[in-house]
Structure formats: structure tokens, C-alpha cells
């Protein structure tokens, strides 16, 4: 177990440097004017230029300069310094104001996934071929097929406009106002988790150890509730880890639609105001969050599946 965790940590470190290098290279690869690249098509004032040159060590040139600047960027990231927006505001400050919304939103979305997605998936998996199963399969397929922002607008149109159950925007941060955005945000993950749980349960139900458990004379609810479920949830938990990445990309869209002033909202705003440092800074953070959640899931995976620990 210990060796497994150490290996995962090393892999994460590798992935961390890889991803940050990739993000950095995509943004600042040596061609054209990197400052202009950050600012997009907006004009850059002399003072902004001086600040950015200083900050990113743009006076150094060549591959050396690139690596030097990359190292700056990474060490800043590790110190929790995500840079400043074009307007000179610290991105950490922006994040501080924004994260409570996004965390609430994401937690609510994950709760939907766990409560509805997994439960319905287990039922569908047990009653494969039933009306419930075919209906949920079809519904989840539709949900998976519809992009989040379309879902968001349809949800907003129907629930806030036609039936007036919710307010169209959720900028007060109350749990009720976040309900609809969270549902929209979690919908894709919910549908995917449901299908995954269904497949996993159906597959495990057919495995030999189920027959063994039955032949021990255990009641059906124990066979399914303990033996099957414990095995079926292994891939689902792994998926939930990966889905955090989707939730963060989804938040960019969902928060824009419902005007939730969270982290994703700031990315969307950064794109619109062509604020490169803001976009890159926040995305760097999101990538780190994603890597960390993957690490946690990997460890959880090893806890859940004893076969993994000894690989």
C-alpha cells in the first residue's frame, strides 16, 4: 500500500510538471509577442508591458528564457501565487471571492450524482431489461448527448421562465438559488455515473462469487447490498474522481449561464475581456485541483480494491 501511494505521488509530480509545462507552452511558446498573446487583441499600455516583462522575465530569450520563465511560473504556482489580472488585481484575491460559490455548486452537483445517479444505476442494473432500466437508459443517453450549455438554457427557460420555480440567476449564493445550476452542472456526471453503475452492477451480478454468496444461504439483500455493491462501486468511485475535471469545465459554462460569480464565471469573463493571465492562472489552478482529486481517487481505489495494492 505504502509503495503504491509513493508511486502514485511520483506519477502525480510528473503529471504536474507535464501539465503545467503544456499549459505554459501552449500560452507562451516562443513566437510572436507573448505580451500581446496574453492581452489578445486589446492594446497593451507601456506600464502594463513593463509589469508583465518584469513578471515573466521576458527580457531573457531563447529556450533558456522559456525554461527560466516556466520555472518562475511553476514556483509561483506552488507558492499559491497565480499572478495578476491585466487590470493588476491579484488572481488569488479573485479566487478568494469566487471559490465559495464554485465549491458549493460542485458539492451539490456531486451529491446529486451520488444520491440519484448511483441509486438509479443500481436499480437499473438489478432490473436489467425492465421498464425502469430502458427508460433511464434512454434518458441518460439524451442527457449525455446534450451539451451542458444547451441543457442549462433549456433548464433556465423551462424552470425560471415558463414555470417560475427558480430565479434565473444565482448570484446571492443561497443553496436554493444554486439548486438549478448544480443540477445542470451535475447532469452529465449523473447520467454517466448511472450508466456506469448499471453496467458494473449487471456485470457483477453475473460473476461467480454471487453464486457462491447465494449458495451460502445469504438473503438477496445481503448478496446485492454487500457482495455486489462493494465490487460494483469500485469503477464508479474512480469515475467520480475523473468527473471533477468535467465539473470544473462545466462550471465555466453553468456559472456563466446562471450568473454565479464563481471560479468558472471568472474564466468565462476572462475569455470575454481577453484577460489572458486571468484565464491561464485559473486554469492552472483547476488543473492542479484535478490532479489532486485524481490522486485521492487513486488512493481510494487501492483502499477499495485489494488486488490493486500488490501490483
Amino acid at each position, binding site marked *: 500500500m505504502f509503495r503504491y501511494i509513493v508511486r502514485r505521488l511520483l506519477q502525480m509530480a510528473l503529471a504536474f510538471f507535464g501539465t503545467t509545462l503544456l499549459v505554459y507552452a501552449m500560452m507562451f511558446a516562443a513566437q510572436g509577442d507573448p505580451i500581446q498573446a496574453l492581452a489578445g487583441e486589446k492594446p497593451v499600455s507601456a506600464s502594463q508591458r513593463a509589469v508583465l516583462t518584469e513578471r515573466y522575465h521576458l527580457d531573457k530569450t531563447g529556450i533558456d528564457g522559456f525554461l527560466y520563465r516556466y520555472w518562475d511560473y511553476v514556483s509561483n504556482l506552488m507558492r499559491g501565487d497565480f499572478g495578476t489580472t491585466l487590470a493588476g488585481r491579484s488572481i488569488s484575491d479573485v479566487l478568494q471571492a469566487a471559490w465559495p460559490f464554485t465549491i458549493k455548486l460542485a458539492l451539490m452537483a456531486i451529491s446529486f450524482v451520488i444520491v440519484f445517479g448511483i441509486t438509479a444505476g443500481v436499480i437499473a442494473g438489478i432490473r436489467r431489461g425492465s421498464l425502469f432500466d430502458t427508460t433511464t437508459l434512454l434518458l441518460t443517453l*439524451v442527457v449525455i448527448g446534450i451539451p451542458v450549455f444547451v441543457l442549462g438554457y433549456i433548464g433556465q427557460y423551462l424552470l425560471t421562465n415558463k414555470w417560475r420555480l427558480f430565479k434565473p440567476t444565482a448570484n446571492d449564493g443561497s443553496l436554493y438559488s444554486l439548486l438549478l445550476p448544480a443540477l445542470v452542472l451535475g447532469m452529465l456526471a449523473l447520467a454517466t455515473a448511472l450508466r456506469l453503475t448499471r453496467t458494473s452492477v449487471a456485470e457483477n451480478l453475473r460473476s461467480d462469487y454471487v453464486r457462491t454468496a447465494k449458495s451460502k444461504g445469504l438473503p438477496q439483500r445481503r448478496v446485492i447490498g454487500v457482495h455486489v455493491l462493494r465490487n460494483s462501486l469500485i469503477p464508479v468511485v474512480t469515475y467520480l474522481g475523473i468527473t471533477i475535471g468535467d465539473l470544473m469545465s462545466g462550471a465555466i459554462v453553468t456559472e456563466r449561464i446562471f450568473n454565479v460569480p464563481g471560479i468558472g464565471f471568472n474564466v468565462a469573463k476572462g475569455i470575454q475581456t481577453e484577460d489572458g493571465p486571468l484565464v491561464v492562472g485559473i486554469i492552472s489552478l483547476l488543473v492542479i485541483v484535478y490532479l489532486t482529486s485524481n490522486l485521492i481517487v487513486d488512493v481510494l481505489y487501492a483502499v477499495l480494491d485489494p488486488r490493486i495494492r500488490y501490483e
Partner: protein
Amino acid sequence: MSSPEESTTLAKPRSLAADAWYDLRRSPIFWIASIIVVALVGIAAFPGLFTSADPKACSLDFRFAGPGPEAPFGYDVQGCNVYARTMYGARSSIEVGLFATLMAGTIAFALGMAAGFYGRWIDTLLSRSLDVIASIPLLLAAIVLLKRLSATGGSTGVWSVAFTLGVLGWPVAARVVRSSVISAKQQDYVQAARMLGAGNGRIMLRHILPNAMAPAIVVLTIMLGTVIATEATLSFLGIGLQPPAISWGGSINDNSAYVRTAAGPLLWPAGFLAVTVLAFIMLGDAIRDAFDPRMR
């Protein structure tokens, strides 16, 4: 859990592909999805056949005007013909989807087969790079790369969006190709072919490629849907296809502020987008089910 000894004697000897095709022909989902896909490709190839109106002829005089003979879906916030724009929008979506998927597929096959077949350091290198690229959610990576491309090249047309999504989207397919190559490589008949003196090239083309084909096609079909969805999301966020290019995502963005007063100009392209993405995902799903004997 029907006892394994029974199923072996009951199964008639049919090849996997024939069996899969037998299943596919009976799947209504497969037919519905195929018809939608063919129709969409038709619209994308010849949008002029479906509308005689000019999607770029917009006039504020027609702002939110109701449906007319030329414009069955009415007019949008800028007075553009919603129907015409939706038809021409299909072209961008399908173009981006096809180019990006072709690109991703080519990279995936080349690298996945090389890594799976030769193993060793090539495999390690590829696997680690896959891990890195896959550690950045597609949309986030696409935002960064497109931001960069738009700043330097200035253009954010179909090509740069397709390039971005292709360059970032290949890892999933490459993983699938790699693992099916590895499993095919260990099959007895491949080993036998090698003993009989077949060269690497021949073994790869005749024995290993066909094996990797089915799972890769499934993944790539689904990816086509995902790419179209991502393109629309990017255009919606204002970083994908930019005006004057016509795209569903862009139309949705243009009209998003008015969803409470006039939902039509938003819902029509949104509906087409959803159906398109759904069709590709359903198609991939149906093929996968047909090829996956475990789910029978």
C-alpha cells in the same frame, strides 16, 4: 450467469463481425442514429439545397421577427434568418467534428500501434505523455490553446478549432488502440504468423490493425459527438468559431441574453446541436453494444 458450459455448446460459430452486424441490423437506435447522421452530413455538404436564404443577410429591421416563408424559424436578435443560419451552422459543426476526429484518429493509430507493437521506451514515452495530456480536461486545454492561436494567428476559423480539438483529443483513442494491439499481439495466431516469417509490417496490417479497428471506431464515433459539443461550447464562450463564421454555439451565445423574451433563436440551434451530438454518441453506443458480447 447462465452456466458457462452451456453457452459454449449453444453458440453457433459466427464471426464476431458478422455477429455484430447481425445485432446492429436489429437495433432501432442504430438506424435512427444513422439516418440522422446521413441527413446532417447532407445538410452540411449542401446547405444551399435546404435553404435559399442567405444566412449572412441580416437586417435589424427583422429583429425577432416571426416566421416567414423563407424563415420558418423566424429571425434572431440581429435580424438574421434563424433557419438559414441553423442549416449553414451544421457545416461548421460537421467540418470541425470530421477534421478533428480524423486528425485524432490518425495520431491515435500511428502512436497507439507503435507503442503497443514495439513496447519498451516508445510505449513508456507515449503512456506518460498520454497521462499528461489526459490530465487536463479537454475544454480547459482547448481554451488555453485557442486563446494562444487566436492571439498569434489572428484567425479562429474551422481549421484552428479542428486542429486544437484534434491535437488535444487523441489520447482516448490512442489508449484504446494501444491496448487492443497489445492484446492482439499476444494472440496465438499472431505468434504463429511471426514464426512463419511474416514481417512486422505484414503482421501489423493483416492481423493487428483489424483487431484494433472496431474498438477504435467506437471511440472515434463517440468522439465526433464530443468534439462537436466542445466546439459549440467554445464558440458559445466566445473563443471557438468567431463571426463572421456561422456556428450553432455562436448563435446560441448571440441570443442567450434574450432567452426570456425570445427563446426560439436560441432553442433551434440548441436543438440541432443536441440531436447531432446525440446521434453520434448513439451510433457509437450501438456499435459498441454490438461488438461487446458481454452485454448480450
